[in-house]
């Protein structure tokens, strides 16, 4: 167990800056998930912590020790790669014991440590197999096993589940969570999948274009997104963003509809409305024209347009609803405690 501190990290490839002045701390035993769209610099950040990429400016501390110039092997970290990166010519046992062998640990201790890890991961019967004889989920487990036998200061996960099929991904996600709570090893986990991020993270870091948008628990990030980007990135279907005008505790939409809210903000703003916080209400303040309905089982998605000015809005209502709404104009009300407002220029949250 260790804590990791990142201070003012910067990274550029030639003239392209991929990380801008990035700082945050990872507490002992914490699982931090870095989430963001592809190209936001999240994998680069992870690789910098691992020692696979050079740090251009700033510093990385593992347990208060500056590791900027240390080789990957000197940082005492373990990494799980997206493509697992198992050694194809070695058996599962050899894969898991490779690092221990290099550390010149006595044979019987290697044996017992691999056995123990194999037991935790239910790999006991596969130890003599070659990676090519394993399924995707089993390979994933071996990659995890290779990480845990070493008892590293921290685990780094680089999109470890994205090569698995949907069902296996859910299962492995749970296993990773279980394993991490059991071992309490500090972990840094990179993914582009917001569901993975929400379910796994103790705290999550939302990144965009090399900058941190929001750091917080999944609940905080979801209920009180700090920036417009976070608001739109986290949550599926994505949050609706509409332009509005705030005036004396009232929000006036561009088509004239009004919502009541307790805010001191005056003037123009971006209004964020989560699709699931709408409800059908004949007398509701928001009138929407329904264009399309999607039945996805647990809820029904309405793809609508704001009446009068045609801005698109998505609404999610629990349960399966009939198709009778298509083409009609329907009134909706919105849970006023769940209104999000963002400043027009800075895109920061207005409380």
């Amino acid at each position, binding site marked *: 167990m260790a804590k990791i501190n990142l201070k003012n990290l910067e990274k550029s490839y030639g003239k392209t800056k991929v990380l801008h002045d990035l700082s945050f701390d990872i507490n002992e035993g914490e699982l931090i998930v870095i989430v963001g769209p592809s190209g936001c610099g999240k994998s680069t950040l992870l690789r910098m912590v691992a020692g696979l990429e050079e740090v251009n400016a700033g510093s990385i501390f593992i347990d208060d020790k500056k590791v900027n110039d240390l080789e990957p092997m000197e940082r005492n970290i373990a990494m799980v790669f*997206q493509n697992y990166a198992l050694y194809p010519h070695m058996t599962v046992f050899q894969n898991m014991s*490779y690092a221990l062998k290099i550390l010149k640990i006595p044979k019987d201790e290697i044996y017992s440590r691999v056995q123990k890890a194999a037991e935790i991961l239910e790999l006991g019967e596969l130890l003599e197999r070659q990676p090519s004889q394993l399924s995707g989920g089993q390979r994933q487990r071996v990659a995890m096993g290779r990480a845990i036998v070493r008892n590293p200061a921290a685990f780094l996960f680089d999109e470890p589940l994205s090569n698995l099929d949907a069902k296996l991904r859910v299962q492995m996600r749970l296993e990773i969570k279980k394993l991490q709570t059991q071992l309490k090893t500090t972990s840094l986990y990179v993914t582009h999948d917001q569901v993975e991020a929400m379910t796994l993270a103790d705290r999550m870091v939302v990144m965009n274009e090399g900058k941190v948008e929001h750091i917080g628990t999944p609940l905080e990030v979801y209920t009180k997104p700090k920036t417009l980007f976070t608001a739109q990135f986290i949550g599926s279907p994505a949050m609706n963003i509409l332009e509005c005008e705030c005036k004396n505790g009232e929000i006036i939409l561009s088509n004239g509809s009004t919502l009541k809210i307790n805010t001191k903000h005056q003037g123009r703003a971006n209004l964020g409305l989560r699709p699931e916080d709408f409800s059908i209400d004949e007398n509701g303040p928001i009138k929407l024209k329904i264009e399309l309905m999607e039945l996805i089982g647990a809820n029904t998605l309405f793809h609508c347009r704001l009446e009068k000015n045609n801005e698109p809005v998505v609404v999610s209502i629990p349960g399966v609803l009939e198709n009778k709404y298509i083409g009609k104009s329907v009134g909706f009300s919105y849970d006023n405690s769940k209104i999000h407002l963002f400043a027009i220029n800075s895109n920061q949250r207005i409380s």
Partner: protein
Amino acid sequence: MKNNVIFKGWWLPLLLVAPQLIISAIFFFYPSGQAIWNSLFLPDPFGLKTEYVGLDNFTFLLSDSYYRASFLTTAIFSISVSVFSMGLGLYLAVLADRLIKGAGVYQTLLIWPYAVAPAIAGILWMFMFNGRIGLISWYLGLLGYDWNHALNSGEAMSLVVVASTWGRVSYNFLFFLAGLQAIPKSIIEAAAIDGANFWKRFRSIIFPLLSPISFFLLVVNIVYSFFETFGVIDIITAGGPEQSTTTLVYKIYADGFIGQDLGSSAAQSVILLVLVGLLTVFQFKYIERKVHY
């Protein structure tokens, strides 16, 4: 999974393999048959008539100390050429693989020697080491070393080995580089995180993963050094001095076309054919086991 296609008649499959069969028949089976047939005869010095001698050509060869010596020469020559050209090719490929800038130029330059025909490569090296006008032999002379591969058999052997190796390094380099680049980068990174330094990674990860390519190159290089180095040897040393660079294939040429002993030459061809065949079978049977695909 069953991939076999079942044909109804036999003429269509025969037609489909016919081109390959015809080429093999004309360029391999017919000449081989001729060689075997000729090896049983002894032509007279003017090539006007031949006399059937049975296996006499073979028994004579096996009792000929020069012929037996050329086996050893061939072994030394082939092993040296294969080891040096593969070792150097691998070394250069590892360097090129680590290169980020200018990799294209470096690779292109390294491939050039492969485009030079063996005979021309031979002339190139012969001139550089020529006892009277050679640049390198002149420098060696300045250093106090008297180079003369026309007299010194060790020097002659080293020179043909160097010249043959030089032409071969490019080929091996290309294959090794392709092999190195096919190894997923994350595997190397995983090994680095696991604590392996470069040398350890090379020995326990990279080299085993290159083994299919190394094996292929071994077979190809041995066959190359058995046959295709004829030009280099002919130009630089013509098998001398004292037959010290006469490999099996060069002796076939020398005995058959210079010595006009076609019967013996044919018998040597047959022996060489069998030898290379056995060697290849041996490689596939014993060395391939150590290959991880």
